[in-house]
């Protein structure tokens, strides 16, 4: 959920809206985000919390460190695998797949 108002940071300034696509099992949905979002923050804000499933046991994975160091949040972005979504800014038309 978005933190719309905050005692120190103030009300959230509505930055330019961006639309990208989250694709799971071949089906894609539109996701709206702010220009300042990363793929990870946008997905979490929109309520999409599981980013991938582990190779061997198919266990759910999501953000862990949020600064690009742990590789937990990796997804396929615009065809490229292993992209650290927590440090990848969103862009209009971006295609994010759950691998």
């Amino acid at each position, binding site marked *: 959920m978005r933190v719309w*108002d*905050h*005692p*120190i940071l103030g009300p959230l300034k509505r930055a330019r809206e961006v639309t990208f696509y989250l694709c799971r099992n071949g089906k894609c949905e539109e996701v709206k985000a702010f220009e300042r979002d990363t793929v990870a923050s946008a997905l979490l804000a929109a309520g999409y919390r599981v980013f991938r499933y582990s190779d061997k046991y198919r266990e759910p994975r999501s953000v862990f460190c949020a600064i690009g160091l742990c590789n937990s949040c990796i997804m396929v972005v615009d065809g490229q695998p292993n992209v650290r979504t927590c440090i990848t800014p969103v862009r209009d038309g971006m295609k994010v797949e759950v691998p």
Partner: protein
Amino acid sequence: MEAEEPTGVNVIGIPTDEEFWKCPGVPSLKRMKRGPVAVIECFQEIPCNVCEIACPRGAIKVGHPITNVPILNEDACVGCKLCIPVCPGLAIFVVDLSSDEAKVSLPYEMLPIPKVGERVEVLDRRGRFLTEGRVIEVLYADKFDRTFIVTVSVPKEYALHARSIRVIKGEKR
């Protein structure tokens, strides 16, 4: 209340009675009864001297090294409250025991900010409900950088324990 609640600044962050009264930043009860005075609840040696710099009357001394625990000169202090919003640890309060009801001023950085006249829940250092109190003053200036100074009036017996407020949901604002 649980049987064995941990106390002690180094154990849990809450002073024992002895630690409280021994602290050089805590004024005497006598001084609190004379009028508003700062109560600096900073018990550990951590590198910080913002309060010393902020006091317009030089009533707070830290010196060097800056890890020294701040010492309050209770006679020089007039309870102006300017030290409250500057303390990065939000550890400074102003207590006034000179009238029927005690006045406790504390730093506040949550939403919503209460309004003057509003009733709020007054909590102790462990967040336990003490009493309802009335907000009698809310101070803010740009240089406080988002830390408000809220003053509540509470029955005297709570003055040394009242350290937090909780805005009552649904309270008319």
